[in-house]
């Protein structure tokens, strides 16, 4: 504890770096996965291909991918983009399946009836399909957020600042407290992100809390994403 207090400034700065490295993959991964998921939902042909590719991406060991990034992207080796792009790829791999399920889970009755009362295609997407996919998308996003925050620690192995530094550094110094601090910090960030997402969800999807079907779908989606 004394060590934590003595080094609080450094821990805080590592925490900030950790957050800055976590947010882009989560956001970008989500934003890219939604349209991809929609394509997979909409067109049978693309579905198999897209889902298989995403499954494959997930089996590549993360460390290898991070190390390969400078060659693939032509970036400098200390560029945080290497880590961010890698984690974005994992986020997409994880999220696309959920996004597909999210659009699949929108009741056909509802989309049909939306068409029947005169929603045009584009409007129907924004005002009906997307919001109704919301609860499942959120469930997937929460899983992605947790796993991304945890994966950012791997950056320490390639010189990226973040709470993972406390692991490598503590390991070299045989200093368990330091490592434990890093673990607790990482879990805390994950929890804070999760709480933020839940609150966002409540604000944006007020109906989802009372809708049992939506809650059930979200629950299934979480399970599926965890076992993906």
């Amino acid at each position, binding site marked *: 504890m004394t060590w934590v207090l003595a080094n609080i400034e450094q821990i805080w700065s590592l925490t900030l770096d950790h957050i800055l490295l976590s947010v882009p993959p989560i956001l970008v991964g989500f934003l890219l996965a939604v349209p991809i998921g929609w394509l997979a939902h909409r067109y049978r042909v693309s579905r198999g291909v897209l889902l298989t590719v995403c499954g494959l991406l997930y089996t590549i060991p993360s460390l290898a991918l991070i190390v390969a990034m400078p060659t693939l992207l032509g970036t400098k080796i200390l560029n945080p983009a290497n880590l961010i792009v890698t984690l974005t790829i994992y986020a997409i791999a994880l999220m696309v399946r959920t996004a597909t399920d999210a659009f699949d889970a929108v009741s056909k*009755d509802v989309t*049909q009836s939306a068409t029947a009362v005169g929603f*045009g295609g584009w409007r129907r997407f924004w005002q009906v399909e997307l919001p109704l996919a919301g609860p499942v998308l959120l469930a997937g996003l929460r899983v992605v957020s947790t796993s991304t925050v945890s994966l950012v620690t791997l950056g320490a192995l390639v010189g990226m600042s973040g709470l993972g530094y406390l692991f490598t550094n503590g390991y070299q110094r045989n200093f368990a407290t330091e490592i434990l601090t890093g673990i607790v910090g990482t879990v805390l960030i994950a929890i804070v992100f999760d709480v933020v997402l839940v609150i966002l969800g409540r604000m944006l999807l007020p109906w989802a809390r009372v809708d049992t079907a939506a809650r059930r779908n979200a629950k299934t989606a979480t399970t599926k994403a965890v076992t993906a």
Partner: protein
Amino acid sequence: MITFDSVSKRFPDGTLAVDDFNLTLPSRTTTVLVGSSGSGKTTLLRMINRMVDPTAGSIRIDDDDISTLEPVKLRRSIGYVMQNSGLLPHRTVADNIATVPLLSGVKRPAARTQALELMDTVGLDRSLAERYPSQLSGGQQQRVGVARGLAVNPNILLMDEPFGAVDPLVRSELQQELVRIQKDLAKTIVFVTHDIDEAFLLGDQVVLLKTGGKIAQVGTPADILANPADDFVNTFVGADRGRRALRIEQVSGRQVVVDGTGRIAGILNDGTPT
């Protein structure tokens, strides 16, 4: 008036859902399409608002061939009510009812006022306006569905088994409500069901369909009961199983009407048959 003129529909997978269908649905009356599962009822109904386009033949509303009308606009001018209500789960009751007016550019306060009035029309308490569909009972949801269908004050109202999923007591209430509303508003209603009792209760004109949208018989309920066209109709209306073959028995000093299956249908009000 809606006119089907040699209309056929073959789905891309080859199913011939409707085969050379001809019918006129008079204005301001209720036409019920009744038939068992897969007979093409929904397909016929959905051709009227161009959710499905016929592969042959034409459909006219009054004198416009609907294939010349823009689908989205057409749909906004026709009320549509379906089983499981098809309400938007993420919008409140009032917003659901106001969906189409809002889409067509009616201002929010005006649309809202109208939505509340429609809630009265369909017998929904206004206090439910801010609820979400999932917070309503099945029967209430269907009422919202009907209100939404009426929101653009359409001449035509399409109803696809709107009461198919609610329990018998509520169902009977909703049927009565529809009879009442129709008495006031006199829309051109096209109603789909596979319940012959419902068809007989609601239909001014009942259309009995066989597979492929083939018409087995068209007529008023009494016509059909009194002069069933063939065995298919007989079976369908239950005459051959005795459900329609009633007789009168004396129980506890009252005249009880019993059907051919032994079930008691009711009490005879008027002692002497006219």
